[in-house]
């Protein structure tokens, strides 16, 4: 058990020498080898200054104000805290309503359990913000919630995200209405008509019905994409397609969903037919966000998914955006999270190298300027005296 002895020892060392997190203080400066800006461009020799949980300033030639604690990470590269666009953390398997398939006013935030172990796992993968979405078994699932995976519990909720609908086959059963896509569209039509009539209604569904905001619409790969495109045009509603992993094969229809696509989970077992989709959609100018579908899959797949999509032709910049700023934009929090820029929440990940390179190790994770994760030391090289 030498490995574990070493692990333990290293943890103790880290705990003893760790620099106090900024959460306790007002300001903190971090000097880093490089960081990735909102476009995925690498800015060398940068300094990040955190103040009250926000990024006060970030740039390459910044001078550090006096009296500010400085964290030296000059051998590391900083990336934005990752944003997972569509998860069911802490609530998996308990989100189906046996009687009503449509619950437009249900709120995923009500299911948020900040102490659930799923969130701790997410932090380890560098995921700092997630969009909690109602189950795909609910035809109109309700309102999503944007939450942080760590940090002070009081600061975890960022707010309500978009409305979530599901047109997957699992939303339709013979025990409640509607039982079919046909019926679902008919019901949506009447719900939309009612919402449009009532102009005072400011619920998420009404906003969506009036075309003021986009809703997450989950589908099975490509089925229903063309029908949905036609429906959206007719009703003037906006949709973000969730799980349209074959959307590239329906590119004409896909181009009509300018609000974006949430794709994934991309795994080491997916055929190219699926994994090339982000590259093709991004090429067509459509916003692409990735998801790990946690907790069904590990949140590790988010960053790996971006790497997989890159090998299929997604550009570096789009790959980074697909797991940071694009999901944040889709979820309605582009000013808070998803990029390293002045005024944004100080959510970031310290890597041993390029954030998009799987060889890079996540060393530390910060949320709201507070360090929430420190990696164990990697196992040491074999000792020579063994031989």
């Amino acid at each position, binding site marked *: 058990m030498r490995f574990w002895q070493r692990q333990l020892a290293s943890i103790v060392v880290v705990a003893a020498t760790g620099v106090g997190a900024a959460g306790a203080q007002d300001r903190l400066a971090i000097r880093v080898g490089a960081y990735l800006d909102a476009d995925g461009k690498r800015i060398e020799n940068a300094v990040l200054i955190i103040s009250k949980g926000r990024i006060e300033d970030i740039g390459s030639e910044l001078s550090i104000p006096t009296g500010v604690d400085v964290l030296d990470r000059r051998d590391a590269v900083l990336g934005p805290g990752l944003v997972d666009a569509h998860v069911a953390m802490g609530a998996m398997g308990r989100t189906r309503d046996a009687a009503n398939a449509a619950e437009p006013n249900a709120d995923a935030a009500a299911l948020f359990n900040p102490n659930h172990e799923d969130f701790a796992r997410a932090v380890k993968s560098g995921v700092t913000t997630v969009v909690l979405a109602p189950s795909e078994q609910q035809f109109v699932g309700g309102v999503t919630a944007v939450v942080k995976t760590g940090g002070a519990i009081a600061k975890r909720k960022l707010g309500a995200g978009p409305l979530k609908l599901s047109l997957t086959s699992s939303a339709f*059963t*013979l025990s409640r*209405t509607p*039982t079919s*896509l*046909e*019926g679902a*569209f008919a019901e949506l039509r009447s719900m939309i008509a009612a919402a449009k009539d009532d102009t005072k209604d400011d619920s998420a569904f009404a906003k969506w019905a009036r075309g003021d905001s986009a809703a997450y619409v989950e589908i099975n790969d490509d089925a229903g994409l063309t029908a949905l495109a036609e429906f959206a045009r007719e009703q003037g509603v906006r949709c973000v397609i969730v799980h349209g992993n074959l959307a590239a094969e329906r590119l*004409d*229809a896909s181009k009509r969903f300018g609000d974006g696509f949430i794709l994934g989970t991309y795994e080491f077992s997916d055929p190219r037919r699926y994994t090339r989709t982000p590259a093709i959609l991004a090429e067509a100018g459509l916003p692409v966000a990735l998801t790990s579908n946690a907790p069904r899959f590990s949140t590790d797949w988010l960053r790996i998914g971006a790497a997989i999509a890159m090998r299929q032709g997604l550009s570096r910049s789009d790959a980074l955006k697909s797991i940071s700023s694009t999901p944040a934009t889709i979820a309605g929090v582009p000013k808070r999270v998803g990029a390293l820029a002045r005024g944004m929440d100080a959510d970031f990940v310290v890597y041993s190298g390029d954030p998009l390179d799987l060889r890079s190790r996540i060393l530390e994770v910060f949320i709201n300027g507070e360090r929430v994760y420190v990696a164990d030391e990697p196992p040491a090289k074999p000792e020579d005296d063994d031989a």
Partner: protein
Amino acid sequence: MMITNLANQRGVFGVRRMWTLALAMAAFVTASSAMADDATPILIRAKKIYLSPERVVSPGAILVRDGKIDRIDETIEIADEVRVVNLEAATITAGLIDANTNAGYRFGYHDAEHASECIPEMRVLDTIDLESNDFRRLAQAGVTTVYVSPDSASVIGAQGTIVRTAGPVEARVVQETAGVKATLGREPIFKASFNRTPSQFGTSFLTRRPTTRMGLVWVFRKSFHDAQTFARGETPGTRGEGSPSDAAIPNLIRILNNEIPFRIQARSQLDILTAIRLSHEFNLKFVLEEGTDAYRCIDELKADNIPVIYGPIFDYPIGFRAGTGESDRFRYSAPAELVNAGVTLALSAGDITGEGALPMQAGYAMRLGLTREQALAAVTTIPAGLLNISDLAGSLDAGRAADLVVWSGEPFEATTRAEMVFINGRLVSDRTVKKGS
């Protein structure tokens, strides 16, 4: 020795297979490349052009320019640059129309609504996949326009739609609401999920009528009775279990006012006669779908001038048709008997979406009595008339968008295939260009 023989035998198959594959790929490649240069006018010279089943130009030449039929004449000589296709044996007809298909529509819990027996407010267009392979196969077989019919699981089903089988998705829909279908027979009772009588296992929305043919007619009557009552500005005495939903009423009224074309699917003589009786009760105009036993009701159909969308013609019933026993008295000669008796008849391949389905149906009908012109009318002008799209499809005329099929020989022969298919001005399938040329 044995091995050699086997090798030879398989070699023969192999060569055939190779050709099929190569041709299929060539067709695929050229179809896409041909669409790219739509700008070049195409002049096709053929043996015969059917402007409609009655009007024939022979020999015929047709010039397609900018997606429109520029000229049709016996010979056309033009000076400017055109692509000339000379096919001496070819026949050109209007694109075929199938007035009753299920293309792009998957039956099952998730696509056809089972929550109610009366769903005329729902639309099949919401469910069909316009990029499904069904459409691709139909287009390549020369079928250019189809009516997509909803599932038959409800007594009064959803709205059918008319779509083109190829072309850009946004230009595919011809008419969103082109009809509502009612189904008589056993399908609304059993299909997809069984309607139930109340039992100790509790109730659901499937605990409902109809569980018998009587119940089915009751649901039909109740629906239209309620609609009639509402139309008079009154409220029916009983609203509740088995009544049509509020959303259904406006569409039922539109059916009663003949604003939405109405269709009834019935196969057996019993059900066809029931359909006619119900149409008398509510003064409904309708088109009969499938009509396997229609040859047994010729007098009744003629008396009311009820058109029939007949088909599919099959060797022996399979699937649900076999299960219901409603198709047992099928006859190959039925189309000819109906046409010769003066019944308006369109042919349909129904849920058979395989390649050549509709041309094959016409061929079957010809084998037992229909003339080629009658068969052609049954897959072009007559369905166009029934679908109210005669000005768009079903016949050829200069000035119209090209919607036509160039057949390698006489249409509907087993050895004839669609060489070129134009849909709404676009060349969507072209087998005349071989790979490499």
